[in-house]
């Protein structure tokens, strides 16, 4: 790049040496002296009262060090339950089990065989309760209530309805939807559905816990180490600082490794066993931890004959399974997800519903995948009804810089048109697709806009070491997204250092400042700002020292390649020389910074508005598909995606994030569906739940990075990770619709569903 030495080009990833040699240590690779191993006993029933649990025989098994049942938990339910939004989940089952796979007990033993033997000897008596497997059944009057007791709120504001299975109910409205619908020339109504799908991160959940002098130390694959620490501390009645969370490399998460996962069970086992305990889930267990919400989105649009969409009414229902997890927050986020179009009257209502399915929670996109699936399919229906080109309809309605969102907040840095035109342009003009015998071809587009959550805070520090290198302490986990490379680039840019002279401090909550974690694509924008500001403080100090040392004005100093020179003069000094000269042999320069990104209610002359997003990032997708007339199989010939990243600090990393996200979207569009029957998962393994392989890629997959710099982002950067997954399914489905002439409103687009649609059968 031009004026920057470290940002804007593809620095080699700094984790490459570790990752290509196998040295990179993930949680399961760690081993502590005296450590024992844990296994979980899981419920075979979808809903039952726990009548009796007897672990006497299990405790006698040779090698068993601890057995955890409800009897070993604190009597106070507040200390035995946890949850990201509501404290509804027992560390192990307390009074009931609520899904097939619900942890009932856990054993720590010297070896896994002993632990398994002990599990088999735990005697559990259940009294089966009626179970519900769909939101519809769950909300039917007079039905079973999964969580009759009141639950404490970890995160207020999602409005659970006591005495019902509604654990989240939020609504938002701008304008007057009822009146606008009434005044519309036509109202178009549709229902779109998505099934539960799984994250399929390759690293299974893994946690090690140990107690040392009354402190709890946890090594765990958490995307949110500080939320994990806070929630774990509450559970054990400790001050947050009495819990230390260390996060090694994480083998992917996509939202599945947020808040608390294995940490409650493992920390209790470690307490009971008096030694470190390690738990690594089996592959099949991982499918029972958390998934993406199945959704139903009912959408009604009021349109005018001149092609304007004037009103939209949306009702979202999410199946969050047996425990709320982040579900109520996802539902709330759905109400903040109004789409990228300026529609003057809009209402969104979202419900989050308990069922006896395995829990659902955060997944890349946090509700936007489900919403974009509905909005963008619906746009093609509206276009068809209005007899206009789907791309033109979209372009006509896109928001512009400064427009007010459904929350009233003004929009900034939204490269919507640029993304949509770039993606559509790659697929080619909307000419008729070529005819191939036995195949039908079609093209489609979709676009989605995500707000990274607000409010949020971040802090970081940077120190300049006596050898002239810098160490960055930024509290964001390296989960594969390349955050650590980008943090180092930002510091290197400010301090004008080469890549090998910028180090990263390990992720340890004892050392680092609080952070919300590697979620919502927030790391670069939020933590990156803190790193930038911290590095600027170091740089200021450095230049002050240099000014004294070189007897020059600070304004005349030039810092480049580890050396400070004076403009227009030969004088200069390297950073280590300067530090030795001014600070002695062991000097360090230190800078820290905190960033607070505002959110919530903001007052203005018009009565105020709500800030829901710290920044907006956008992805458009365009697909060309070929459908086999005889089998219904969809082949994606070409998928092009354009993502507005603000500023690409590391184009290669951005591309990797976008491409990977797009391929997850491809899997969800065509094949992925976590299936169950009466609460029993049917495909809880990679053998039956197939994610895209090398063989399943589109013939061409283009990635375009659009740069609409954000005024607050470090060097204009925004987030990248999540958004590219969100338009994929709708773009492909719109292409399929163009090919076969009928819409499909449920995912995935399996060959059978497509074939039935082509034949006019109910899919």
């Amino acid at each position, binding site marked *: 790049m031009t004026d920057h030495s470290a940002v804007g*080009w*593809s620095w*080699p*990833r700094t*984790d*490459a040496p*570790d*990752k*290509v*040699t*196998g*040295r*990179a240590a*993930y949680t*399961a*690779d760690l*081993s502590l002296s005296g450590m024992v191993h844990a296994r979980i006993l899981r419920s075979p029933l979808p809903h039952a009262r726990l009548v009796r649990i007897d672990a006497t025989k299990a405790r006698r098994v040779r090698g068993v060090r601890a057995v955890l049942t409800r009897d070993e938990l604190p009597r106070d339910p507040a200390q035995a339950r946890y949850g990201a939004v509501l404290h509804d989940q027992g560390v192990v089952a307390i009074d009931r089990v609520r899904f097939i796979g619900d942890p009932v007990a856990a054993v720590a033993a010297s070896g896994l065989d002993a632990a398994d033997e002990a599990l088999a000897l735990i005697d559990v008596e259940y009294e089966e309760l009626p179970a519900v497997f769909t939101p519809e059944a769950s909300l039917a009057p007079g039905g079973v209530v999964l969580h009759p007791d009141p639950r404490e709120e970890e995160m207020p504001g999602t409005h659970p309805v006591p005495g019902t299975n509604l654990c989240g109910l939020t609504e938002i409205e701008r304008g007057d939807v009822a009146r606008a619908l009434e005044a519309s020339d036509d109202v178009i109504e549709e229902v779109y559905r998505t099934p539960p799908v799984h*994250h*399929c*991160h*390759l*690293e*299974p959940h893994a946690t090690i816990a140990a107690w040392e002098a009354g402190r709890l130390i946890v090594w765990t694959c958490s995307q949110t180490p500080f939320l994990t620490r806070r929630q774990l501390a509450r559970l054990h009645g400790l001050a947050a600082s009495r819990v230390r969370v260390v996060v090694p*490399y*994480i*083998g*992917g998460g*996509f939202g599945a490794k947020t808040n608390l996962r294995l940490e409650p069970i493992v920390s209790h086992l470690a307490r009971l066993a008096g030694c470190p305990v390690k738990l*690594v889930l*089996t*592959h099949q267990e991982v499918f029972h931890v958390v998934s993406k919400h199945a959704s139903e989105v009912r959408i009604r649009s009021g349109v005018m004959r001149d092609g304007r969409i004037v009103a939209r009414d949306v009702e979202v229902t999410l199946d969050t399974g047996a425990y709320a997890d982040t579900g109520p927050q996802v539902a709330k986020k759905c109400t903040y997800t109004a789409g990228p179009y300026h529609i003057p009257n809009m209402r969104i209502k979202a419900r989050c519903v308990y069922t006896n399915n395995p829990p659902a929670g955060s997944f890349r996109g946090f509700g936007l995948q489900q919403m974009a699936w509905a909005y963008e399919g619906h746009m093609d229906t509206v276009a068809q009804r209005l007899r206009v080109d789907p791309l033109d309809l979209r372009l006509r309605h896109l928001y512009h810089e400064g427009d007010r969102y459904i929350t009233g907040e003004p929009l900034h840095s939204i490269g919507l048109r640029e993304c949509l035109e770039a993606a559509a342009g790659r697929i080619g003009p909307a000419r008729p697709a070529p005819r191939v015998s036995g195949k039908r071809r079609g093209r489609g587009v979709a676009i989605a806009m995500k707000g990274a959550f607000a409010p949020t805070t971040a802090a970081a520090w940077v120190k300049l070491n006596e050898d002239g290198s810098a160490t960055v302490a930024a509290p964001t986990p390296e*989960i*594969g*997204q390349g955050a650590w490379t980008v943090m180092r680039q930002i510091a290197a840019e400010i301090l004008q250092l080469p890549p090998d002279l910028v180090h990263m401090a390990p992720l340890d909550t004892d050392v680092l400042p609080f952070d919300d974690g590697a979620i919502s694509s927030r790391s670069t924008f939020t933590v990156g700002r803190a790193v930038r500001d911290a590095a600027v403080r170091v740089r200021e100090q450095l230049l002050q020292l240099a000014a004294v040392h070189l007897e020059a004005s600070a304004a005349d100093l030039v810092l480049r390649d580890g050396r400070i020179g004076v403009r227009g003069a030969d004088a200069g000094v390297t950073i280590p020389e300067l530090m030795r000269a001014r600070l002695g042999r062991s000097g360090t320069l230190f800078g820290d910074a905190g960033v607070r990104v505002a959110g919530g209610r903001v007052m203005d002359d018009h009565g105020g508005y709500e800030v829901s997003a710290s920044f907006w990032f956008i992805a458009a997708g365009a697909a060309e598909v070929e459908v086999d007339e005889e089998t219904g199989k969809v082949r994606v010939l070409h998928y092009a995606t354009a993502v507005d990243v603000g500023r690409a600090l590391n*184009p*290669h*990393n*951005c*591309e*990797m*994030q976008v*491409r*990977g996200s*797009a*391929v*997850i979207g491809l899997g969800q569009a065509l094949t992925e569906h976590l299936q169950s029957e009466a609460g029993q998962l049917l495909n809880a*393994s*990679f*053998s039956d739940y197939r*994610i895209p*392989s*090398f*063989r399943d*890629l589109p013939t*061409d*997959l*283009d*990635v*375009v*990075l659009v740069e609409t710099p954000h005024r607050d982002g470090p060097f204009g950067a925004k987030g990248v990770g999540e958004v590219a997954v969100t338009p994929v399914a709708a773009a492909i489905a719109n292409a399929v619709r163009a090919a076969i002439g009928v819409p499909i409103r449920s995912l995935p687009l399996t060959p059978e569903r497509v074939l039935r649609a082509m034949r006019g059968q109910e899919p």
Partner: protein
Amino acid sequence: MKRVVRMAVNGETVELLIETNRLLVDVLRDELRLTGTKADCGMGVCGTCTVLVDGRPVSSCLMLACLADGRTVLTIEGLAAGGRLDPVQAAFAEIGAFECGFCTTGMIMSARALLNEDPAPGREEIVEFMAGNLCRCTGYANILRAIGLAAERERHRASEGTPAVPRARGCSSQTGSP
């Protein structure tokens, strides 16, 4: 029941007294502390536990360690002979053909096995050989590039040329064949 198992692991003969029901992946990770080999699906589908046994790629999660007796095992730790990266490792590092890294060591071992079989694989051959190694992060394209680059370099090396090394710089916007 325990048995003495002798195998050549990464060029060194190891002799272990192990239970016959232990899996090779567990023996490598737990007994020999070779944790670069990862464990995930446990059913031979994901490829994270790929090691080479007698030169061929196997799922170490499906191999009883006692049946590796008398055989040669190569893991990711044995690939960088004398601290020098194997061309496949070097290509993955240079291109940045990974994200979370959990699939990477298995990918590299499979790619190594491929290039041992076929020094000049085309895109189709790479895809067919590598298809059993799953990645959820990257969308695969850069892994294909890295394998192509490694193959090209090895061929150069074999013909005693100095390889021209394209640097991973800027954003490649096309899937492109390797």
